[in-house]
């Protein structure tokens, strides 16, 4: 079983925590995510033009690039993480141009060498899968697809084709950050997605508080939290790791309290 599959087969909702690579002390912050109880780590590859991101993650991208972060640095961070945490799934999230700059095979090789389990590329929809998907799948790296409120039933099977790891449900039409998604709508959407795929379904975008994470944990296989953690890093800089760990632990407790193991949807 892959690391991602093992994680989702555990009897608890997965907490997926996002930070931007190269923004602050990334290694320490990654360790803090794991110590706080994150099940899966999502590492953002910074890009000059993060057009799907709200202000918090935009600023993190620019801080990271301003500090001189390179693609080589990101894979070094990933490889070191893998050495420290052999069992924790690591997913790269980012934009097409930095990912395909040296060719899709190059990226796939780097992912494989660094122990990256999956890749989420914001601006490669299934229609353009050829740009990256075949190389990743050939290297055993999951192509993690996004489904959104605009992905209708007719389109969903196409989105699922070639998808791996888990299905990432973007709970609101919008950018990462502030907006809150309505709970009922999320439950309906997750049920619809789970009827169409055996992949675990994780929900993200706009999840900021332990209460929100708990609500989603009742209906989905995973919860993604990004901007709220990135904001802590922006605010606390070198003192961020302990704050990040405490915040992630609060999410973890809320999610674990949200449902009993026997309630886990099959």
């Amino acid at each position, binding site marked *: 079983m892959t690391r991602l599959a093992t994680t989702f087969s555990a009897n608890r909702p997965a907490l997926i925590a996002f930070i931007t690579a190269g923004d602050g002390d990334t290694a320490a912050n990654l360790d803090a995510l794991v110590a706080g109880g994150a099940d899966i780590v999502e590492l953002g590859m910074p890009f000059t033009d993060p057009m799907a991101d709200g202000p918090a993650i935009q600023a993190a991208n620019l801080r990271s690039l301003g500090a001189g972060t390179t693609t080589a640095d990101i894979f070094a961070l990933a490889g070191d993480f893998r050495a420290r945490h052999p069992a924790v799934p690591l997913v790269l999230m980012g934009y097409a141009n930095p990912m395909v700059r040296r060719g899709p095979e190059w990226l796939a090789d780097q992912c494989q060498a660094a122990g990256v389990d999956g890749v989420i590329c914001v601006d490669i929809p299934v229609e353009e899968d050829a740009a990256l998907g075949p190389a990743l799948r050939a290297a055993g790296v999951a192509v993690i697809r996004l489904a959104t409120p605009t992905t209708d039933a007719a*389109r969903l099977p196409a989105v699922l084709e070639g998808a791996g790891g888990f299905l990432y449900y973007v709970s609101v039409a919008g950018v990462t950050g502030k907006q809150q998604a309505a709970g009922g709508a999320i439950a309906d959407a997750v049920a619809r997605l789970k009827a169409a795929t055996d992949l675990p379904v994780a929900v993200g975008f706009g999840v900021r508080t332990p209460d929100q994470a708990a609500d989603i944990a009742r209906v989905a296989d995973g919860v993604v939290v990004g901007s709220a953690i990135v904001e802590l890093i922006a605010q606390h800089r070198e003192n961020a790791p302990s704050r990040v760990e405490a915040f992630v632990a609060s999410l973890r407790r809320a999610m674990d309290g949200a449902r009993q193991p026997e309630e886990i949807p099959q």
Partner: protein
Amino acid sequence: MVAPTPNSYRTQPDSEGHFGAYGGRYVAETLMPLVLELEAEYNRAKADPAFRAEFDYLLEHYVGRPSPLYYAERLTDAVRTDCDDAHGAEIWFKRDELNHTGAHKINNCVGQILLAIRMGKTRIIAETGAGQHGVATATVAARFGLPCVIYMGARDMERQAPNVFRMKLLGAQVIGVESGARTLKDAMNEALRDWVANVDDTFYIIGTAAGPHPYPELVRDFQSVIGTEARAQMLARTERLPDLLVAAIGGGSNAIGLFHPFLDDKDVAMLGVEAAGHGLDKQHAASLAGGAPGILHGNKTYLLQDEDGQIAEAHSISAGLDYPGIGPEHAWLKDSGRVEYTAVTDTEALTAFQLLCKTEGIIPALEPAHAIAAVVDRAKTMPRDKIVLANLCGRGDKDIFTVAEALGVEL
């Protein structure tokens, strides 16, 4: 990379929106269904004679088309004093600066707002660099009574202040964008963020022949009125086709609009002029000359970028050319060899700007001033019986403050 010569250069893109290896639909999943819906609606509109009729009607009576085709006799004479007796081709202009709102941008905006209305959209957004596309969008939004939000880099708002005021007079809300270099690229990021958050009611009027499919195709089709008119006018006036077409390139919409109807006329050469800014070895906006293929803003095309794929900040004195990418059809036309591309610096464009003012009594926008600089250069090397036709795609009223500053004049 030179592809085999196709039978026709006018059949792109393919059904997936690819121009050879370029173009495509590199957008977030949230936007993908919208982009597919737009494509389907555009195909229906193309097949609907009533759509074409309304477009033509508005271009004639609202925009003021056809724009004149003008033989620039005094500019031609000026060029001829600068070369031997055998050389100095005739210089002609397609006068799209005489359009309502002062540039070619309105052609595309009329087409797109008619599409927006067909689709039942009730809110318009756009990005703008020089402000010409923003003004044209605000204009059609006012004409059809739709609310309109324009995203503009904060730096561009400073250097194109008259256009900011024009947009506001027309009832648009202008939102300054503070991220990145605070120019056109950043405005486009912000417009995409708005669109992704307002998928139900909003139509995004993209201002150049770039972005996800079908934008490069539909913007080209709407702008092709320039080349279609010019071709007929030239034949009527001279009973021949021009020998060389020249146009400035930001994203490439005025250029593809002029070029596309001539692409299968084998004897018509074409020259696209990018902005070389401070020089191609310094900061510039020439993505074909100094960039490499990559993915940005929904399409695969040539981009100014570093070895990690981070997008470089472009520079041009002309806000309308200050963009690190280019429309995908130009990327394909470059690789195929059908169109030649060159680049002109800020200084060369300023010289051409002043030359046109003094020889022809026409104040051009800084964007076509780049084309004029290339025209003057080329005409000198071409025999006198040849014809160069350039797209005078905008007038310079918006640029007088920038030019004054560059010339050290205090207003």
